[in-house]
């Protein structure tokens, strides 16, 4: 017997994606990406066990 696939949309992933996209936008509005870039450009010696 072959049954047709049932499709019921899961809403949770979309709620989560929207929530985290809002967080990203808040971060961008606060200028956080430039700080992240600044940190990522520098070598953190103590972070890698040196110094």
């Amino acid at each position, binding site marked *: *017997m072959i049954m047709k696939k049932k499709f019921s949309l899961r809403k949770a992933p979309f709620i989560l994606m929207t929530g*985290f996209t809002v967080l*990203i936008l808040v971060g961008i509005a606060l*200028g*956080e990406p430039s700080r992240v870039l600044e940190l*990522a450009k520098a070598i*953190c010696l103590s972070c890698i*066990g040196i110094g």
Partner: protein
Amino acid sequence: METARKLIQTVWFFLVNGFWGFPLTKNIYQGPLKVVCSPGLNCYSCPAATTYCPLGSLQQLLLGIRFSLETGSVYIGTYVVGTMGLLGAICGRFICGWACPFGLFQELLHKIPSVKLPFPRPLTWLKYGFLVLFVVLFPLLLVDEFGLGAPWFCKYVCPAGTLEAGIPMLLLQPELKTTIGWLYWNKIAILILFVLWSIATSRPFCRSTCPLGAFYALFNKHRLIKLKFIAENCTQCGACHHVCPMGINFNETPDSGECISCLKCMTQACKFDAISLEMAGYSFARDIVPQKKKTV
């Protein structure tokens, strides 16, 4: 499928480690791509790294939170957590199975012929402790006289940082050798532990210690793309148990936070279409055939 996965893991490795001019510059990549998040664990102090590590960045923002607030900047990690969360909500631990360079490293080590040991299951909870304590609370709360914390996970634990950044930086800048001390040897010991453990046990760092895996695991049940268990087709043969690199009994815990969605259970084990890919509720399985088949 396994060959395709290895290929995609390799492509991701080179995407997040795409700067091969470091032997000439003797320094890390410092271009604008470093504002992009590496989905998997990849140290941004690695000379070849082209993206930022979400765990490293989050710790750096949290440890300096007092200083940034005092200077009028609100760098509290919303951009980094938002990016990690968006990746988690879409893929969950698919990232661990398909896009993590340190996961690939462990898988390659596990191919070395040796006695293979099972993973002690209670240790799976340890990584949540590392996430909460070493990535969030300790950097945020344990501060020095200047109000600055430390990146506890990177500094005291992360073997990916030692492998990808600590050792290469010492080779690139030999003058740094004068500054190494117990911290460096402690991290080398942790790296050796995980290298040896990975030869004997499948992905021990991912299962016991990785805070990024712990974070993505929180989304495994509600992520956009996930594996679906079709109970009507399952014969309880247990074939999916034997191929899982994370030791999951998929037919018993299909939404397990440990599942890295490597698809071995779907493509190499289950012959009854009881496991399929699903996106937001839409199953990519063939039409369901509900009659029970013979158990193998």
